[in-house]
């Protein structure tokens, strides 16, 4: 065996994945080649060092969350805090029921993934607002005549939220109303668009207080979508997904 083959197979040798004949061949080369022996030594010590990284323990709160996920099976009830609002202290826990009716092997469905991607793209792009310095109801009526469906804003039931501006946009070839808020100090993009033939199923579908919410994640941003009548309401932000779900659920 020469140096080129030896360097190619030294990983498999180190991992004990070579058959006996090859192992003998490579060992014969290693006895006479200082460089390949050095490469093996360095790789072996690096592997030993990397194995120590596997000892990281999961944090206790994560362990508890996972235990809750598993304890409710086969119907999984998942309890977790939504908003740490003192007013809503009594309602600080929300029951999320994970829909269990249609098991799928691949997630998310292509159409859902594209929808999520589109909403995130609109959120990330810093396009100028067409209406600013207005309240959200004025902005909602501003859309009349510009797009052919009525727009309802997030409403005033959301804590720590201020309205920033609005513009006409589109999602997956559909006209969309885009409204930007700041919630808990983070930018939140709220999109309203007609459901048309868009399939709102697959993906991570959950039912919260009777509303079906679909969640997704792209490029580090979270997305939550709700179908209400013929319309889809979507929010995107780098806020936690549970906060985005609460925005849709508490929408007036």
């Amino acid at each position, binding site marked *: 065996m020469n140096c080129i083959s030896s360097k*190619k197979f030294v*990983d*498999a040798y180190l*991992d004990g*994945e070579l058959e006996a004949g090859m192992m003998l061949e490579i060992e014969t080369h290693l006895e006479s080649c*200082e*460089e390949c*022996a*050095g*490469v093996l*030594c*360095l*790789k072996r*010590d*690096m*592997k030993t*060092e*990397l*194995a120590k*990284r*596997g*000892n*990281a*323990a*999961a*944090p206790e709160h*994560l*362990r508890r*969350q*996972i*235990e809750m*996920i*598993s304890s409710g*099976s086969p119907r*999984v009830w*998942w309890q977790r805090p939504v908003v740490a609002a003192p007013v809503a202290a009594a309602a600080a826990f929300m029951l999320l029921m*994970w829909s*269990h009716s249609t*098991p*799928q*092997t691949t*997630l*998310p469905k292509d159409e859902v*993934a594209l929808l999520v991607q589109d909403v995130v793209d609109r959120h990330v792009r810093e396009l100028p607002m067409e209406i600013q310095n207005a309240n959200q109801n004025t902005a909602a009526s501003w859309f009349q005549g510009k797009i052919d469906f009525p727009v309802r804003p997030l409403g005033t039931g959301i804590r720590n939220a201020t309205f920033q501006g609005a513009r006409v946009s589109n999602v997956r070839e559909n006209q969309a109303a885009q409204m930007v808020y700041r919630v808990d100090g983070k930018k939140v993009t709220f999109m309203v668009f007609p459901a048309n033939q868009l399939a709102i199923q697959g993906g*991570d579908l959950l039912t919260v207080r009777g509303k079906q919410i679909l969640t*997704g*994640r*792209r*490029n*580090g941003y979270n997305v939550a979508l709700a179908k209400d009548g013929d319309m889809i309401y979507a929010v995107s932000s780098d806020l936690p*997904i549970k906060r985005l779900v609460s925005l849709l659920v508490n929408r007036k």
Partner: protein
Amino acid sequence: MEHLDSLYASALKMTRNQVEAEELVQDTFVRAFRFKKNFEWGTNLKAWLFRILTNTFINDYRHKKHEQRYIERAAVEPLYDQVLNQQAVKYASNPENHVFSKYFKEKLDSALEELPDDFRTVVVLSDVEGFSYKEISEILETPMGTVMSRLHRGRKLLQHGLVDYAVEAGVIAPPSVGDKSDEQQSTTDLSEFRRKREATP
């Protein structure tokens, strides 16, 4: 809670971020319970959970950012190979006093973070988790040959990262022109490459 620590440790290495690692593990368990009908008892539960973890990571968590340092190194890879082979000989003769021993503690995690997702994932599954090639091939639904070549390349790139840190710190000398008579290496050398890199904004 079986395998939770392992899944978390790998999620941490894959996402490079504690918050995302926790979300990734949660997503993994939610899906695992939802699809538990698909799990065949008697087969490898840990590998099955890791398959869900890596699928979820690839679909929902992968950031499309460029690994700038890695791309720059890839352009002059033969030079890094040359330095790496020389240093490997020095390392083997006296590991404790070689800079890599120190870097295993201090720099290995950063070097791992700089690897592109595909290579980092395979290195994590093999070296951090100790999965066999066959298991990794099942987890990633990728042919065994691809697993082997990604692992080989991933480890090499990881070591190139260590070389880079050492050259930058002035601990390892960059190779000079004519150091070896390989004609592909005679036109550029590492210090020239560095000067160029610093000159570009």
